[in-house]
């Protein structure tokens, strides 16, 4: 029997799930794009990114200086793995509920 996919409480919080799902489709994404896509404020996104970064799920890279300063967000291999496992866990719950 295969092990159960891992449900991840850290990822599952709605805002963080949206951030991680968006980053999972990308090699990297610009901070402003993620902020605008999810309709978040700079500080709200920074807070969530800091949490994901602390968990080792997201890496942050700053480039340029002054007005051309940009922040790139990237899902780390660990974050990508956790996201896949979490998505699989959700699908398993949905499948199990549908079967009963």
């Amino acid at each position: 029997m295969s092990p159960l996919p891992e449900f991840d409480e850290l990822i599952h919080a709605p805002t963080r799930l949206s951030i991680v799902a968006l980053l999972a489709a990308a090699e990297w994404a610009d901070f402003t794009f993620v902020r605008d896509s999810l309709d978040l404020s700079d500080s709200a996104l920074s807070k969530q990114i800091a949490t994901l970064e602390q968990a080792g799920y997201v890496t942050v890279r700053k480039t340029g200086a002054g007005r051309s300063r940009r922040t790139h967000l990237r899902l780390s291999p660990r974050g990508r793995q956790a996201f896949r496992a979490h998505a699989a866990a959700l699908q398993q719950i949905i499948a199990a509920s549908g079967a009963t």
Partner: protein
Amino acid sequence: MDFDDARAGMADIQAGQAQAVREAARWRWPRWYVAATAALMLGVSMAMDFGQDAALLIVVYCCGVSLLQIPLAARTRIRLHRSRVTLRVNWPLGALLIAVAGVYVLARMALGAVGAPLPSTLAGVLMAGVYAAGLPAAQQMTARRLLAAR
């Protein structure tokens, strides 16, 4: 964790991923980049008619194209994961570049055969024209494939 919560989570995941793909599909090469690339093609083609070292011009072209990537990268807001940027999605752009090279080679051979003056320059004009005219169509086809594949 119940069924509804799991379904809401999956909906969030799909929405986030669709948003990333839509942004990538919406992206277009800026006009300055297309113009600079076409100018580079034309400049190198012209230099070929004036006896410049072909190997040197190839290096100049490759360096020029690489340099253009720097400001281009600064304008990009997202780069899709490699699993989504497949040959199946991107083939129109690849086909365009092959066609552009083919146009130059065939036009130059034909113009050379009939003894036309400045064959490389004329072939370069054709090549740059095909590139600039074909890029929007190739990009639209790629965007459609990207959206369909999501």
